[in-house]
């Protein structure tokens, strides 16, 4: 099959980008092999949007004076953040979980692929699907249901995406570290999802919360992501007008990502010492 001298020839090597894209290609091929899951997802998104559209009909616009009084647009941005957060929080955890279940985790970790490459590669396809989902939802909302957004705020929203995704991916990395050790029962993803929905103002403005809880909202990074996205897409604010909120968001992301990767490396190390890497 391979001549001895051929094995010693230096061959072109893959780059981390090529490896991340190979992971994305694998994820895409696996994802589209579950066609009913895709159909169920489209149905779930469509009914979710319709539900919030009808809820918006009964919401008093005066409760939303900072957001042009439009609940449907307000909540769509909350759903937008929800889609991004589920990618960041869940993608790598899901990868670890499914590799453990399919028995491929050990052979994957025995390749020379760097952990950050595995981490980033596992985000690509879920992020792609989330973006398609967002375009679909906003397309239907604008073209069919009459939602209105400020085109001038698109740049602000686009700039908010990288730190938002990085922030949730960092928390997702902590979840993955937990899954590496405990195999099940990650508490971080539900905690983050619920606190985003309830305290950070994804589904309703935090102004309706009691004063103490409003204070807690300001400690949560997703609150700042929502502020920036809404200021841009509903009010048409530029990135400079939301500067403080944006900087806080970026700071949260910059601090949390290295901490997350470090925790994940430590979790893998503990699993390598205790011999629990592949147990499931």
């Amino acid at each position, binding site marked *: *099959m*391979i*001549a*001895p001298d*051929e*094995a*010693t020839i230096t*061959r*072109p*090597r*893959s780059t981390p980008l*090529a*490896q991340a894209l*190979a*992971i994305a*290609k*694998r994820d895409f*091929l*696996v994802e589209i*092999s579950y066609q009913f899951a895709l159909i169920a997802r489209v149905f779930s998104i469509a009914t979710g949007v319709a539900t919030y559209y009808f809820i918006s009909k009964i919401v008093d616009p005066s409760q939303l004076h900072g957001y042009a009084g439009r609940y449907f647009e307000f909540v769509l941005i909350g759903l937008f953040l929800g889609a991004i957060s589920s990618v960041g929080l869940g993608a790598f955890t899901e990868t670890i979980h499914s590799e453990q279940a*399919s*028995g*491929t985790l*050990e*052979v*994957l*970790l*025995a*390749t*020379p*692929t*760097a952990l950050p490459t595995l981490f980033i590669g596992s985000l690509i396809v879920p992020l792609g699907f989330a973006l398609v989902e967002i375009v679909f939802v906003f397309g239907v909302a604008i073209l069919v249901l009459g939602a209105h957004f400020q085109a001038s705020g698109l740049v602000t929203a686009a700039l908010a995406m990288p730190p938002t995704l990085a922030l949730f991916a960092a928390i997702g990395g902590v979840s993955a570290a*937990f899954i590496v*050790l*405990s*195999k099940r029962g990650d508490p971080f993803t539900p905690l983050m999802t619920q606190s985003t929905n309830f305290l950070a103002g994804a589904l309703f403005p935090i102004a309706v919360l009691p004063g103490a809880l409003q204070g807690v909202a300001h400690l949560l990074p997703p609150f700042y992501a929502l502020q920036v996205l809404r200021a841009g897409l509903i009010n048409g604010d530029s990135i400079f007008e939301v500067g403080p909120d944006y900087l806080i968001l970026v700071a949260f992301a910059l601090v949390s990502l290295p901490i997350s990767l470090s925790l994940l490396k430590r979790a893998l*190390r*503990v*699993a*390598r*010492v*205790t*011999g*629990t*890497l*592949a147990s499931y």
Partner: protein
Amino acid sequence: MSLELRGVAKTYMPAPWYLRPVVRVASSKPVDALHDVSFSVAPGEIVGLIGPNGAGKTTLLKIISTLLEPSAGTATIDGIDVVESPRAAREQLGLVLTGDRATYWRLSGRQNLEFFGVLAGLSVPESRRRAGEMLERLGLADRDRRVMGYSSGMRAALNVARATMGEPSLLVLDEPTRSLDPLASISVGHLLREQADAGRTVLLSSHRMDEVATWCDRVVVLIDGTVRHVGPAGGADNDKAARELLELLEREANSP
């Protein structure tokens, strides 16, 4: 030497106290799995690791593969320490673990090989070329369906091919023929011999005396985590060597 083990020991320790509510291990007390394991394997050589269940074979192979950290001793692949430089060591390593779920069953054989080739360090075109070459060699090129449709023998062969995609200098296999019929086992044996003839170092664990005696140049007998015998696997005198190994294993099993 391509693979060098010096005084490798492994004791499975319980998790640190602050992680015990989260990390569940088999025993709350330290479990000794390997003691002072030392041997080496040269390029082009196939060495069989044989021993009863629980002897520590898989533990040793996982240490070599950077999936487990040894408690003491060193393991080097082409002079690279697997603990000090795990990524560099993995570049020299191809791993086949026991069982046939080491590929993605919803992908085709070709897609699996191309994926693992890139992760092993090959460029995309090179990985594609090599995957085609491998499938051709395995007789799977015209049956490029999802792995879930493969027979056990085809999956075992695909696993060996997957492990060799990155053209590693060391191939580590943990019972690659478990649950295979004799013909499929022979096919895997031929594949391993080709790899050794191409200059690769091959270390495989097995329960089967016959295949170790037939395929391997040397044999290492591991019992209770300790190396009890290192010697020729048989060569032209397969039956005699196999009989001697069997006697050794029986003696150890019956010893108080």
